[in-house]
């Protein structure tokens, strides 16, 4: 595991990743980080130290809401779900991200 490539997430990216991870269904904290890790094939790793503050920041902004529920192993867990403004935010941010990466790629690929 230690050999996974370590990528520093640019500012604000974590929010986008969390929103995306929640797009399908509500998840609890660990599942969110697990999902990001799996989908990115271990390239992206979210530290617990940044995950929970980010979750609470998003909750404060009203993009996600939290509810207590039962996890897979039947433990009480806090599930986060996208709100309507969260969904809108995801679309906006994803669009912006794609535009940015496309532009950066274009720039880098130009000899």
């Amino acid at each position: 595991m230690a050999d996974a490539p370590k990528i520093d997430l640019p500012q604000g990216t974590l929010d986008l990743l969390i929103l995306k991870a929640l797009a399908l269904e509500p998840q609890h904290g660990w599942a969110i980080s697990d999902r990001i890790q799996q989908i990115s094939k271990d390239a992206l790793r979210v530290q617990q130290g940044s995950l929970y503050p980010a979750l609470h920041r998003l909750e404060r902004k009203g993009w996600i809401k939290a509810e207590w529920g039962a996890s897979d192993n039947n433990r009480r867990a806090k599930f986060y779900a996208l709100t309507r403004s969260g969904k809108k935010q995801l679309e906006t941010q994803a669009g912006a991200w794609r535009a940015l990466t496309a532009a950066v790629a274009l720039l880098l690929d130009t000899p």
Partner: protein
Amino acid sequence: MLADLRHRLRAIFRRDAVERELAEELALHLEHEIDTRVAAGLPRAEAVRQARLALGGIDQITEAHRDARGIGLIETVMQDVRYGVRTMRRAPVFSLTAVVTIALSTAALATVLTLAHTLFVRRLPVKRPEELVAVAATRVRWNPEAVAPRDAARLQILGPVSYPDYVAFRDRVTTLNGLAAHYPTAPLFASANGNVKEINGAVVSANFFTLLGLEPIAGRFFHPSEDAVPDRDRVAVISSNLWRTWFGSSPQAIGSPLRINSVDFTIVGVASSDFVGTTPLPIEVYIPTMMLRTGYRWCDDALAADCTVLQLIGRLAPGRTLADAAAELPTLMPESWRHARAGENSGVATTAVRGLSDDDTEPRLVTILTGIAIVLLAVCCANLGGLSTAQSAARRTEVSIRLSLGAGARRIVRQLATEWLLLGAIGGIAGAVLSRVLTGMLAQSFFTMDDEGHPLRYVFAQTPTIVTLTIGAALGAALVISISPAFAVVRRARASDASVRSTASRRLAGRWLLAAQAMAAVAMVVVAALLAASAHTMVGGRNYDPSHVALMRLRPRLLKYPPDRAQQFQRNVVQRLAMLPSVASVSMVGVGGVLDGGWAPIALPAWTGDRQVRARYNEIGPSYFATLRTPLLSGREFDAGDSLRSPRVAIVNETLAARLWPDGRALGATLLVNTTPHRIVGIVEDISLGSRASLPESWIYTPFWQNPAQVDSRLAIRLNAEPAAMLPVLAREVNRVDPDVPIAEMITLPMRLAGLIRPVRVAVAFVGYTAALAVLLTGIGLFGALSFTVARRTSEIGIRMALGAARARIVRAIVGDGLVVVGGGAVAGVALAAAATRLVTHLLYGPAAADWLYYAAAAMLVVLVGLAACIVPARRAAGVEPVVALRCE
């Protein structure tokens, strides 16, 4: 936005729950991490270790999480406050000084605010007082200060109205839901149940009580039918005070008789003690307006159209404003008002009913006192700003460490501001509390008795607004104070330690602030001293000697004595009193008070047409000036020979003599007083009760016994004994002549004079307080600054000593530093005092020739205090041991 707020509030107020939830979440996360690793084949112990490593410290996460929760600001403020409390505990003397200084300064402000509120703002303690309006007539009269008609300024004054005019307004007004008439300061000679006294009463229309929404605490108020026919319904309502003191609060008082001005009334009710009147003179008895002829004895018919005595108070009709009433009432003005002469009612003024001020000099006084309170607060800011700059130097290390640990400069400035706000809040609260004591003292000393000895009632209540303003002012002051040390700390801390030491200024820190304090202190001391000297001059007497003079007022008019009977009574009283062994001499005045009087038009026989001038005037008994010890310049006093059968004579004062007879031939000349020729038989020195702001007055005196219409008198009795103790003896003697005649205003002349100059005495007390505080603060400020300088320069002083500097020279240097600052401030203070004195000219009495003494003394006092403040730091500097000082380096 709402979600944000809810979230933040939950984070703050349900902090425990939020933290518990977070802990639970983190625990779950850890468990999942461990499970994943166990599933991958690791032994459990190793899985736990790796998971913990991967997660990092729980505490850091919690901290970061708190930031994300958005409670950083409040948490830091709480931290700052906790830290501030610790700092205060660590420097208790400094903190105590700061709190006490802020408390003493804001207490002055709170006191003057309370004064202003009571005098000008407070509403009557009745139902919906904001709806009440006062309706008064306006009159234009010649300015009495003017000497000749051509330079006379016209003054507009407010006046009462006659009963018929009241009825005309009452019956036609539509913007008011009722208009009541009242004469709130009726001197009534009352007797009942074995008690006899001149008391303050009110003659009121029957609707007065219902209009104000008052309820009787016993019996009832007046029926409208009892205020319909003149002189028929002799009913009275008494105050709860009179009920208690004269009737022991017995229910039997209702229906019992009360004799007022020799007319028998029946008590029908008792008024509550909540409302005691619209003026500072509390009302003890109410009688209906139809009994005005009994309550007011200065008109032939008190209910006639030419007798203006009633004040009007109305309640706005629903939906109407003061502006509506102010617009309507002038249209209802009686026709006769339109062609009024000077001094007659000619207009209407409608105002809100607020405050208790009955003295038009009071607004100016309170404005001046407010200004002084604000200056004091500024001195407090300068002082504590300077002290804390010095003190903050001691915290240099602490601040350096915090800065190097990554604290922002803003954070440190905020920390300092929080500490000061904490001190300010405590000081402000203490100031508000202290102000209650000061206000109580002020009220007790100056607002319990008027200048004629009548009891007064002012309610000096501290309102929530005043408390808020006071604490606000303290917090504002604290912020101002924190500015300079905060920046000093940051600036000093940013520079490296070594460079700080080399660039340390050799000049006294905050010397401008210190000089400003010295300046304000000198100015306040000068003003306080001049005011005190004025009060002393007035009460001590100039061309009169008030000591050992007793006063009393005899009013047979209240009993409707005809002039011949009244004069016989007066003659007998004077003779009887003069025979008492302790009485040196007895005299009297017929117009106004002793040392005072009224106005009369005078003219020289040679003047043509209607040419006249107005002069101060009184009718005086024989040996009046001997009784007051006022020197005669030439001629003689009136004596027993000046009677109705002898030629009319007059005495003029020096000013009038010089004005009308510049050649000095006043004695023996003829002067027309009220168009009657009088021969001048004496010239007397000026007796002036006027302040420095007023012009010297022309006075003319005529004999009391040459006015056949005289009824009442005010006696001046010079005694060989303590006058206050003699008053009952004198009263007993008068009662022996005629037990029915009311004796009022029994008081000593110094007491009366002190009452007359109440504004001066209030100002003396107030400015004296602020001046003492300013001087003390200057001393403390200088002491602090010098101590700081000495501490900072210890090594430099050590080096200089090691190089051979004498200790005396070091002491001289330190003391010199301090004295230059205080001396400079004191010189500026003398100039400021000269300007400030002009603002209080109207409160100053007596010649200004000796004023420079007070200026010099004030400057000297402040410099001496400064010198005293230098001594300890200078001795400490002189005590520096070169070796020890250098080792410190």
